[in-house]
């Protein structure tokens, strides 16, 4: 295991009676990285994460987290990691500050709860009862509790599910802040744009296997899905024959004769050729859009499912 490797997984398998939920997966997560685990329900990502958190025993294979074996050194591991779960609660009548003090007492080391609450914009709410907090405040408190032991590795399980877009952006900002502090984050999410924005690398899981692993850009580039180039000219093409540009799979001219849509497997090269042609024909360009395949497109291509399936 590399010295900057925080999580190392080799041939990891997990079975429940007749069901094999994780079918021999391999990956590594490095220091300071935000690593995303994507997959539809039942893909095996929850089992994988729970094995790494020391909550579930693996059936076979190897897993090392922060140098600990999650099966054998559960308590030591839990003492060093931070976990923010999707569906958890605190007692309705507990105050924010009290919950911080309580959780701090669970760990062998803890950092100033005042600093954490200020950082997560909960300082003014420190005397508020849990039941009076909004969804966003509860999620920020969940993050504060996950950080109370100053962990270098954080597991964030769908941290923004069910939150409105504004609060989601707030949480994204906090995750980016954690990344800037060189913390390692393992993120599971249903939101593709979240993975695209936050993750340095993602692993796409389906039916217990990792079907793709890499940076979001690498995965997009590997995709067979074509990029779309949309050209709008100031005046119609006026029946000018459109050339057969290289790498173009299909093209479509709108009825107004000014809007042309081109699908290409190598969009940069195709776009260059289109620009050359427009210049040569003296057609004034008004607007151009290049849309590469999204991670969602890659996901659908690899799994045949949408992430929310």
């Amino acid at each position, binding site marked *: 295991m590399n010295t900057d490797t925080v999580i190392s997984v080799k041939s990891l398998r997990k079975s429940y009676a007749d069901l094999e939920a994780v079918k021999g997966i391999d990956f590594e997560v490095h220091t300071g990285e935000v690593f995303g685990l994507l997959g539809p329900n039942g893909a095996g990502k929850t089992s994988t994460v729970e094995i790494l*958190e020391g*909550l579930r025993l693996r059936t076979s294979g190897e897993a090392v987290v922060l140098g600990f074996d999650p099966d054998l050194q559960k*308590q030591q591991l*839990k*003492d060093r990691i931070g*976990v923010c*779960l999707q*569906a*958890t*609660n*605190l*007692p309705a*009548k*507990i105050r924010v500050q*009290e919950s911080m*003090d*309580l*959780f701090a*007492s*669970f*760990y*062998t080391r803890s950092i100033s709860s005042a600093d954490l609450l200020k950082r997560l914009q909960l300082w003014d709410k420190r005397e508020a*009862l849990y039941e009076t907090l909004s969804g966003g405040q509860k999620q920020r408190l969940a993050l504060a*509790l996950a950080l109370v032991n100053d962990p270098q590795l954080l597991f964030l399980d769908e941290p923004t599910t069910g939150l409105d877009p504004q609060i989601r952006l707030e949480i994204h900002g906090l995750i980016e802040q954690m990344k800037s502090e060189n913390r390692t984050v393992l993120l599971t999410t249903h939101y593709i744009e979240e993975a695209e924005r936050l993750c340095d690398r993602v692993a796409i899981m389906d039916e217990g296997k990792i079907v793709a692993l890499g940076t979001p850009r690498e995965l997009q580039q590997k995709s067979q899905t074509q990029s779309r180039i949309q050209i709008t000219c100031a005046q119609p093409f006026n029946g000018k024959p459109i050339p057969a540009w290289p790498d173009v799979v299909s093209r479509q001219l709108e009825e107004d004769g000014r809007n042309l849509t081109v699908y290409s497997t190598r969009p940069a090269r195709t776009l260059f050729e289109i620009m050359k042609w427009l210049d040569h024909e003296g057609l004034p360009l008004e607007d151009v859009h290049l849309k590469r395949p999204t991670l969602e497109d890659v996901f659908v291509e690899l799994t045949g499912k949408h992430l929310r399936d």
Partner: protein
Amino acid sequence: MRVYLELIKIDLKLAMRLRAVIFFNYLFPLIFFFTFATLFGAGSSRERITQVMTMSVALGVLGNGLFGAGMRAIQEREMNILRRYKVTPITPGPLLVASMVTGWIIFMPYIIVLMALAHYQYHMPWPARMTELVVFISLGLVAFRSMGLVIASVANNMQEGTILVQLFYFPMLFLSGATFPAAMFPPVVTVISKFIPATYLVEGVTGIMQKNQGLGDNLPAVGALVITAVVGWIVGMKLFRWEKEEKIRGTAKLWVAAVLLPFLIMGVYQWIHKTQPAKPAVGALETQGIGHQRT
């Protein structure tokens, strides 16, 4: 140690912020105390107020133990509170200890209020063996809270938990002498009561309060409660579940039987040897026609 203190502190604060806790731990049993006192004419004799006191203590222990410990643990699991604790280094031990200590701290003021009311309002003399009484009540509380934790461990949800708790609570309430004096029981119920855990609680409190006995004079009751507390604790730890999704096998519910085993053995022993559990001073009740006329 810090985690124990913090959990106890938080548990106490949370309990004091819940009206239901205040109502069911203090007001509700006090309503029964005054009802019993009125029904049995508690002001007319030392025996009667002592009997009322015994019944009120038993009622409080049963409620605090079974509902307080059992239902709260199920509720915390149902609400995914324990799931949040599960991802931290904490183990079930501190959570159960805190629950036990908090239950005791919350319960003791009720006993003090009861004693004061019985003494000042109904002229009950202070118990001669106060320390032994407090120790015995504490032991009963720990035993019944352990039993509540075992029920919480085997119940998969609030509905199941409510049914299980009530299956324990009501027979113990009515067949142990906690609500009807044991002196009123027909012979067949007297035999059944020997198998009811709460009978030994009532028996011990009766012995200490009404007959000035010590713990040593109530060894069978003390033994049964100690064994229940220990077995309940071990089973509660073994079956502790953090998440509602962790369903328990149907056969695991048999662990509840393990907690009841000491009482089964005690019941059989007493039945075979025709030993009578300590009975309250019933003469006064019988002369008023309240007690069952035994031959």
